[in-house]
């Protein structure tokens, strides 16, 4: 779509308790712009399409290479990173909204702390003895490494939670990202030794049993992480572990 201007509609909200409002902007288009560079242009000229001076819109961003996850928002109805949303691939007016499954901070910024808390809850780490020089780590089959790497690219962006019907203000479902991390750490030769701590964390309220199998997560993941495979694999692990626990093994 080769227009010489970009029409933006941004959902603004001054704070969690303030009423939302819409503001429209019309800015000049240059080649190869993305949503972030459009927002930067607005920030340099914070004037709405009807000529009103306004405050610079507030948004989260850091790496702008789709590896940090910060600039996730809803663009034309789809949750994704604003940095990799190229203007000439988007229908105009381009509509920007904050994610809806997390507490709103201001404008396009939300608070995703619950995702980091979830990583704590499932013990998403390898419990090493210490940072002393203890020699090389365990040998790893290159195929296992490739599988682990594909899971390890999760940047905690929240796309999978945003599209999940099981994530609601009333539910406590932990979401696909943390479940997939359990699979990652349970796959590692050292991590495996502590698999049951992670499985137990997923067996309580809001755990893996709350997955409704809508499979939206895997389609929304910008890093193409096989989230539904992870949920299935961890589901099998929890079943096996529960059975073992029942039999007192």
């Amino acid at each position, binding site marked *: 779509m080769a227009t010489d201007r970009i029409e933006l509609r941004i959902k603004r909200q001054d704070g969690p308790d303030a009423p939302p409002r819409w503001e429209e902007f019309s800015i000049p288009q240059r080649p190869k712009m993305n949503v*972030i560079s459009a927002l930067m242009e607005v920030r*340099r000229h914070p004037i709405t399409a009807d000529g009103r001076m306004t405050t610079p819109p507030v948004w989260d961003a*850091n790496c702008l290479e789709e590896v*940090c996850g910060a600039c996730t928002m809803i663009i034309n109805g789809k949750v994704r990173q604003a940095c990799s949303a190229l203007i000439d691939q988007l229908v105009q007016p381009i509509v920007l909204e904050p994610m809806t499954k997390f507490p709103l901070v201001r404008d396009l910024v939300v608070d995703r702390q619950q995702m980091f808390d979830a990583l704590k809850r499932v013990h998403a780490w*390898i419990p090493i003895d210490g940072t002393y020089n203890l020699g*090389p780590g365990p040998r790893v089959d*290159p195929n296992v*490494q490739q599988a682990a790497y594909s899971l*390890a690219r999760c940047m905690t962006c929240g796309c999978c939670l945003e599209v999940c019907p099981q994530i609601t203000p009333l539910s406590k479902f932990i979401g696909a990202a943390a479940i997939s991390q359990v699979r990652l750490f349970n796959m590692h030769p050292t991590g495996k030794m502590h698999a049951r701590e992670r499985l137990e964390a997923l067996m309580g309220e809001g755990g893996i049993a709350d997955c409704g199998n809508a499979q939206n997560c895997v389609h929304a993941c910008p890093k193409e992480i096989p989230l539904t495979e992870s949920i299935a694999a961890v589901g099998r692990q929890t079943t096996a572990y529960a059975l073992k626990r029942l039999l007192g093994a």
Partner: protein
Amino acid sequence: MGVQPKTIVVGGGLAGLMTVIKIAEAGIACQLFSAVPVKRSHSVCAQGGINASVNTKGEGDSPQIHFYETVKGGDFLANQPLAKGMCEAAPGIVYLLDRMGVPFNRTPEGLLDFRGFGGTLYSRTAFAGATTGQQLLYALDEQVRRFEAEGLVEKFEYWEFLSVLKDEEGICRGIVAQNLRTMEIQAFPADAVCLATGGNGLIFGKSTLSMVCTGSAASAVYQQGAIYGNGEFIQVHPTAIPGEDKLRLMSESARAEGGRVWVPKDGKPWYFLEEKYPKYKNLVPRDIATREIYYVCRALKLGVDGKDMVYLDVSHIPAETLDRKLGGILEIYQKFVGEDPRKLPMKVFPGVHYSMGGLWIDYEADSNGNVVAGSPRNHQTNLPGLFAAGEVDYEYHGANRLGANSLLSCFYGGMLAGPAMVNYATGLERSCGAVPASVFEAERQRQEEACSRILTLSGTENPFVIHKELGEIMTDNVTVVRSNEKLQATDDAILAFMDRWKRIDINDAAKWANQAVSFTRQLWNMLEVARIITLGALRRDESRGAHYKPDFPGRNDAQWLKSTLATWTPSGPEFTYGPVDTRFLKPEARKY
């Protein structure tokens, strides 16, 4: 000291997290401050890998060779005991990361795989696809989360560092920080503080760095008396994708895996790096490759389509190899440019990438030149009690950093800074708790007032516009090719920006999540450091590493084998020059 010491680390990238881990491992509590959730720190952008001379390929590599190549790569400006210590520690560091679960690429035998990189002919670089920095950061983030769960680490994310607290004797006793949501400004007393706040690429407007890399924290402590070293040495990476919002890095690993740089000449590809450097070919150090690309595009006017652009070509490499070893960066190119680099050569141009300079730090070496482990002098700035680690410090890389040495210096820096802070803090006679609260309140008040002044700026200037203009002139005049005339003009322009800064219209009075206030404060701090970079370059009449002046084309060891040391004064940086510790390797001609 009777009570448990208090420590603070500012910055949650690799260096900050490693510092925290070392402190927590000693059983000491640590508060970790970061302007972003630490998992989103700039370290995620590092792509190619981390150097360690493990010599698994029968090439005869050793830490000694790594050390030599690091010092030569840095054009002999690095203090050698620290660089040597880093290279010797490297194999152990990579093994540690491996134990933490970093999914490093493997050989068929299941061992760590290593690849080549710039400035070396050895396979020395361990890697996890082409998102190594992300994978390393996640591994440390996970270890820190474990300490957080145990109660040893307390995170303050979305808090911005404003200044250090200094007691009556000028000793650093904590920090003042602002909550970026509530905008509350608070004093946090501590016995030892470490800044691990990264680089300052945003001074150049567009760079390969993340949005948080304004260098604001380093600038703030420089304005409080910390010495800033070698500021003029800015690395411009040879291969980045130009963008409207930033320059996206195309890792050196693309060339390490066989990628070739060329431009069309007389209807045929001209592999100018291979022709001029038959030994190192496309893997000459970054400063050299960047200058060659500039020469081809600007002097010979042979850039692709007559533009500032050369080809970086991996299309001859099998797609399976590319996906396994470079997948992450090829995905970036495809997503942001819309072309498949497996089929078409990528179009790239140099972009600002790394600051070799930064806060001056000390170290203690024994009579053999080995760094004394645990010495409180290690990584301590000239402000007692304030430490620095990672890109924010001026050590390790001299006048030019070798690829895949930055992740390494972050780890090694953290491994030295953590124990140094613990030993410094436990050795204090008077703890921060014994300092009168009025001392802390005075500094907090000063920051509160500075913030209020910004909130009431009601002129006509837009801070984001000033920033854009600053970036343009810095990129034009203070990067690859420098002249005294243009450097002087740039400093004049920075002074004019400082004047315009006072006439900013803040245009957002909100007392909640106000990004304009935070950015405006950081803009001033960027301007202060822009002067260090520009004036440091103006004074250094020679060419060394990344600093190149055609009017002074040679390296001049007699006059300039010195560290640049900038001290803040109200009228601008005051420069002195310190010796460089070259006890192991005598400077020699730098040829590739």
